[in-house]
């Protein structure tokens, strides 16, 4: 064994970092509730919620239970694709995973008949003209694949 004195190591090229990358592909199961939710959007241009058996609240997205009551849900409910704007933000910052190039507007909308806000985007309106409380309606895509993007965006009514 040869003992190396301090500074005796080869100092030409420091070893600084290793590139890490994870290429793990996920297949997230939708389960029976998302399955029906997205099929209704794709096939019938319909947004469906589900009712809590205890509080009667109409929940979105549909799920087997109500988180507030911790009770099962049962009855499916067809909702309007119109509603009121609850809050919004205009996205100026670019980041990975954006649905479109900024600027664009994210919105939470209370659909008529629902008790839970629906997340989507606003279109056909300039950000400075948007007002909380305004009525908006879904604009459906013609080529629907069973995702949230089966709706292009919500436009002012």
């Amino acid at each position: 064994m040869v003992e190396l004195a301090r500074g005796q190591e080869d100092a030409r090229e420091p070893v600084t970092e290793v590139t890490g990358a994870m290429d793990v592909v996920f297949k997230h199961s939708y389960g029976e509730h998302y399955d029906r939710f997205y099929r209704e959007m794709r096939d019938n241009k319909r947004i469906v919620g589900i009712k809590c058996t205890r509080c009667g609240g109409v929940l979105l997205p549909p799920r087997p239970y109500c988180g507030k009551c911790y009770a099962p849900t049962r009855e499916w409910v067809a909702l309007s694709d119109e509603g009121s704007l609850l809050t919004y933000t205009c996205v100026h910052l670019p980041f990975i995973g954006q649905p479109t190039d900024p600027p664009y507007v994210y919105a939470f909308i209370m659909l008529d008949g629902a008790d839970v806000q629906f997340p989507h985007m606003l279109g056909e309106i300039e950000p400075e003209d948007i007002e909380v409380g305004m009525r908006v309606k879904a604009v459906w895509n013609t080529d629907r694949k069973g995702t949230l993007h089966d709706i292009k965006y919500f436009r002012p009514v």
Partner: protein
Amino acid sequence: MEDVGVVGWAQTRYGRALVDETPQSLIYSAVTGALDSSGLSIGDIDAVIDAGSDFLDGRGISSCVTVDAMGAQFKEESKVAGDGLLAAIYAYMRIASGLFSSAVVVAYGKSSESSIRKQTRTMAEPFYLRSLGLDALSAGALQARSFMRQYGIGPDACAAVAVKNRLAGVKNPHAQLRKEVTLEQVERSPEIMSPIRKLEACPITDGACAVVMAEGGIARSISARTAWVTGIGHSADAYSPGVRDLHRAASAKRAALSAYKMAGVNDPLSELDLLEVSEFYTYQELMLYEALGLCGEGESADILKAGVTGPGGRTPVNPSGGVLCANPLVATGLVRLAEASAQVSGRAGDLQVEGARKALAHAGGGLAMQTAACIVVER
């Protein structure tokens, strides 16, 4: 310190890929099942401790997403990034402290949604072991050979663990694999990483498990058949398999010693009526016989051969069929607690070990059994 009992438990169905279930639907089914079996309702519960893996879920801080499914809205929820048995130890401590009176413990995993082989590669840090691609199976295989060579244990002894556990699993309604295998089938199954053969490795499993724990007063008021937690222990060995004596499960030994000391167990072989252990590969069960105090050094194959740990033996190990019959990561160790609790409370159905009063549940984690957790439950 308050008495703490396990008063309810439930397991979901298990499968290689439950494509009609989400993590949330599995959690909801396990937790509501465990509450039903306890007689408590979610309103009686003041703490929720969960175990999940953000890596397996493919999302960060996943307990934020699963909080509704766990019944944890506005409860003091906290997450363990490790096996569900650690979550049970955490819940035990909360209740034992007197600050909480009852807890739901839930663990879940859908290993099918990504590649579990790629996932376990991330257990190796990026600077050294990961460059070799070392994963859970290859680290296990290195340990298996080290253990077998140290004590002259033949491949037939390891294969016999698979035969024993798969036979037990036939009677387990929760087991994913419910078909027995012969010694010849195990020994002729393909060598996936020597010396480990295909039938010596646990399956890939989707599923969830939940238990309900409560302080003594509540436990006594709702159930005549509580599994009392009388001992706990957990321990972590050095990270790198290279610095450990690989043929010894040192952390399991320490975790068990802590639990035994607390529970007043001096001779586990005669005082425990059964053990439920986390054997991801056959050789691990043999190593655990020694680490958990069922035999002396190098004697594990002998007690297996003598039937000590088999059905009707003095101290059955894994009467449920163990992890070789279902491995719902990261609920695997919590399942051991559910099974052990069912046994000591006389509610194990077809799996019941007659007269069982005291049992040990064990969980393992990390590369080559780096970490371990143990809980002693008794009637």
